[in-house]
């Protein structure tokens, strides 16, 4: 095999430009995933059976239906009900809302391993439930769940490649296109993998730093 570094060098700028879409979609998606996921988790654990049921339903829908189909729904079906989202917004929303379902479950798992006495102590002091979540439960759930959360965020970065179905030229799509022109898939894909790795590594390192910071004792 003659491995062509020229091909890589020549196409690198286009791959990097495409990576900007990947980053835009995944970072915005992450914000939605984390915020909405936390709220969803709280709803899932609420005392109100209707709220709880709604959260369960939400989670089972968004985990159950392939993201590809969700994206197509967001982009191609919503116009039929009068909601015509631009492609980028649709992609961000779909990835974020879908990932939130997973985030919510990760947090719920972690919350269960926080001893109930800590919540009781907060109750006894009359601490409002928002503060209870923000100051006591979430920081600890994040510490316990951090590796799984980073897993989820990394998956989100990769899954942003599905945004190509609504016409966004993100990293995976562009590497496929370039492959179609150069007939050098290995070179291009390895380069794309390195770019993905760089993005994800930043995530992973931040995760470990936060984990360390939240480490107790």
């Amino acid at each position, binding site marked *: 095999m003659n491995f062509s570094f020229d091909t890589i060098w020549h196409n690198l700028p286009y791959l990097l430009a495409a990576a900007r879409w990947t980053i835009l979609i995944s970072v915005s998606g992450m914000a939605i995933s984390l915020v909405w996921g936390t709220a969803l988790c709280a709803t899932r654990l609420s*005392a109100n059976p209707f709220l709880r049921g709604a959260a369960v339903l939400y989670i089972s829908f968004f985990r159950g239906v392939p993201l590809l189909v969700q994206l197509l729904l967001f982009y191609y079906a919503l116009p039929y009900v009068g909601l015509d989202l631009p492609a980028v917004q649709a992609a961000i929303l779909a990835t974020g809302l879908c990932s939130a379902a997973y985030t919510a479950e990760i947090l719920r798992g972690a919350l269960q391993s926080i*001893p109930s*006495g*800590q919540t*009781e*102590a*907060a*109750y*006894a*002091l*009359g*601490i*409002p*439930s928002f*503060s209870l979540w923000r*100051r*006591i439960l979430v*920081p*600890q759930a994040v*510490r316990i769940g951090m590796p799984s959360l980073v897993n989820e965020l990394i998956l989100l970065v990769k899954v942003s490649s599905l945004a190509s179905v609504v016409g966004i030229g993100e990293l995976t799509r562009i590497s496929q296109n370039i492959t179609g022109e150069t007939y050098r898939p290995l070179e291009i894909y390895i380069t794309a993998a390195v770019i993905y790795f760089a993005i994800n590594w930043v995530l992973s390192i931040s995760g470990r730093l936060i984990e360390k910071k*939240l480490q*107790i*004792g």
Partner: protein
Amino acid sequence: MSKEQMTTTADDAIITVRNLSKYFDDFEALRDITLDVKRSEVLCLIGPSGSGKSTLLRCLNFLEQYDGGEVHLDGELIGWQDISHNPRKPLSGEALRKQRQHIGMVFQHFHLWPHMSALDNVAEALTSVKKLSKKKAKEAAMAALTKVHLEDKAENYPANLSGGQQQRVAIARAIAMEPQVMLFDEPTSALDPELVGEVLSVMKDLAAEGMTMVVVTHEMGFAAHVADRVAFLDSGRLVTCVPPEEMFGREPDDARVRSFLQTYRERNVV
């Protein structure tokens, strides 16, 4: 509440417990407890391990949903919306929170928040409940920690504190909130005799300021010194509730109480 206001109502009960009962599945943890706690009184609860002392305390601020009877604080029913309704429905979280603000609690197992320093453990409720500024809250928290001689451990996380230090943080956390009623669950179990003395004097000060206290304790000496009345629980029933002189001063009437106190007396004639 100031001492003056209080004198007018000094004798009426702030907490009334009527026919309280509590089951854990089939196990009857409390049976038909009836008890009044007067304003600014210090009531000690003693009794054998597993007799229901912690459970009773936890019913008073509705951390346990009691099954039968009623608990009133200042005339207000604690926890349930309406007891005539069957099955009973608990109050909403927000309403409960309002009620609990007036009732402080120190837990038997402390339940400190492990991800916060000692200082933050104390300051947390001051900012989020009392709405003090961060700075004010830290100052007040430091003052509370100083009361229990922990000023130099303020920045330690709970895991890096000794057992007694953890217990003192828990005490500081509760008293910093200055509630009307304090519930202490064995607040001196991990403390050395000297500190027990200190905590005792802190509690005496609080009592003088008009705070009502219910204290579960295994330290008879402590009970004898701090209590206005001592209640004895056994197998979930209230056996007796009398002033300490009566409980410890002479041979108690009740055989159960007598045998309970016996080993203690023997051991402590040092």
